[in-house]
């Protein structure tokens, strides 16, 4: 291994401190303008509670759906050759590149009842714009690249010989996928899920245009935080932000531990 552990660790800590920890510490610091009862009252107000359920619920569902469909997209891109593959591959990254407000306005226009998609859904009794479904759609849109881009390199490295060996030993296709391929992809899928989930939790621009933002129904937590800021209530805004931060951190940590555990399980079993 290359030497320089102390130097690089020092740099890592300095960099993380500068870029991540200081702004986060400022969030906690601003919260201290509130007393404990005020803090508690702010973070448990009914509109905030409803928004946590919505934000975490919709983000979780969107990331979950992306795990399934992202895996399929990655699979197709890695395992098959077809005309226009490079274009499809590039399309996957678009949600990364598009300014989120543009995505939001576009989605809202598409799914409103006069929009291209909205007018097809309307006769079926499905309303997407300004409902929780709309929020889910926006979060799915922005989350897709995370899964595809984390799973793709692992799939590329996956030796098809393993699958052939499994078949020759009598495994059917389902067993090959379930017992051989999927366990090896699980850590990458978990990472992708965590990234997509985390991104969705903090998403603002693409959601507000399609959400409707009705308190208790379709108002995500970042909108509540913006509302507090607009009323010059920095303490309350950061209090709610702290809740988001702490819960997100715990969830991401859990996912990381889960990923580490599956990784170890794989190495032990395959070694």
């Amino acid at each position: 291994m290359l030497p320089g552990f102390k130097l690089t660790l020092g740099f890592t800590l300095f960099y993380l401190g500068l870029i991540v920890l200081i702004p986060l510490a400022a969030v906690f610091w601003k919260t201290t303008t509130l007393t404990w009862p005020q803090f508690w009252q702010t973070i448990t107000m009914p509109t905030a509670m409803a928004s946590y359920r919505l934000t975490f619920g919709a983000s979780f569902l969107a990331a979950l759906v992306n795990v399934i469909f992202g895996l399929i997209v990655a699979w197709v891109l890695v395992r098959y050759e077809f005309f226009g593959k490079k274009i499809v591959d590039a399309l996957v990254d678009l949600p990364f590149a598009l300014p989120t407000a543009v995505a939001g306005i576009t989605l809202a226009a598409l799914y409103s009842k006069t929009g291209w998609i909205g007018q097809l859904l309307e006769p079926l009794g499905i309303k997407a714009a300004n409902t929780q479904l709309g929020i889910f759609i926006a979060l799915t849109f922005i989350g897709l690249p995370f899964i595809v881009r984390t799973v793709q390199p692992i799939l590329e490295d996956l030796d098809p010989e393993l699958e052939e060996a499994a078949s020759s030993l009598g495994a059917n296709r389902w067993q090959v996928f379930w017992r051989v391929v999927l366990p090896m992809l699980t850590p990458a899928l978990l990472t992708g899920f965590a990234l997509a989930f985390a991104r969705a939790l903090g998403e603002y621009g693409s959601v507000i245009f399609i959400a409707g933002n009705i308190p208790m129904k379709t108002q995500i937590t970042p909108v509540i935080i913006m509302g507090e800021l607009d009323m010059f209530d920095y303490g309350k805004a950061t209090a709610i932000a702290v809740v988001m931060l702490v819960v997100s951190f715990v969830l991401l940590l859990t996912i990381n531990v889960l990923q580490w555990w599956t990784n170890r399980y794989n190495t032990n079993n395959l070694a």
Partner: protein
Amino acid sequence: MKTIFNLVLLAALAVSAGAAEVKLLNVSYDPTREFYVEYNAAFAKYWQAKTSDSVNISQSHGGSGKQAQAVINGLDADVVTLALAYDIDAIAQQARLLPANWQTRLPNNSAPYTSTIVFLVRKGNPKGIKDWDDVVKKGVSVVVPNPKTSGGARWAYLAAYSYALEKNNHDDAAARSFITKLYKNVPVLDSGARGSTVTFAKNGIGDVLLAWENEAHLALKEFGADKFEIVTPSLSILAEPPVALVDKNAKRHHTTEVANEYLKYLYSDEGQEIAAKNFYRPRNEAIAARYAANFTQLKLVTLKDEFGSWANAQKTHFADGGIFDQIYQSQ
């Protein structure tokens, strides 16, 4: 060589002494864009004629609350022209960039022009919306921004509330049930006035948009008078978007004099006329009379008469757990 250099230096000094270029930053809210573009040009001309200095005015637009936050956080505004006094009060209280009594420094509560809240409906007015009572009817879909994030939306909320108060002999319970019915009819709460205009006009949502009067006229211009029409209710609120010098910033830039004049000139005949042309109600009655066709007569109540002060209105209606929150929590 030296003489040439000296000559150039002298010339440069002469030029800079004769006609300096002054820079001003006006931090404003969303729907004033078109108005200030025209006003800035007129003021620059006036200022150059008067002092031979050329003045270069930059504009910044956004939601009124967000703009105030930006100034509090250090955006170098020489003057602010925002949607409501509450936002300038916040700059005075939190950043102490101007004195607390700023609103008394210029005539008419420092609001050189006024506006109000009107209805924008679809052509032919298919739901027959004539006044506030029609807006709260079952089955009418209303588009308005969130009063927690939008200055214009706060005026709209207060306009509806004032109507209910006036109609029910200042009975608060009746006004609350009225405002609850109104917001039950709202399918989308955008974060700002422009967002709601787009939701209503572009995405085809809602039967009526509660809008700034000038924004409603702009929407007619922008999207075509064949698509929408303006309905003026019998009563609305007199919205007074105030302007103020940001003393500390202007002092640091040495622009106090020109910035003050910039605000005062808003009250001049030319300033008033530009405001009227851009659908802001001028204070000057002679000019108001000339543009009477743009401004339907209606009963206008003031914030002071109905709610006392912004601090009061804010606390009772828009703060966490206030009447606006209760509308949604009581279901």
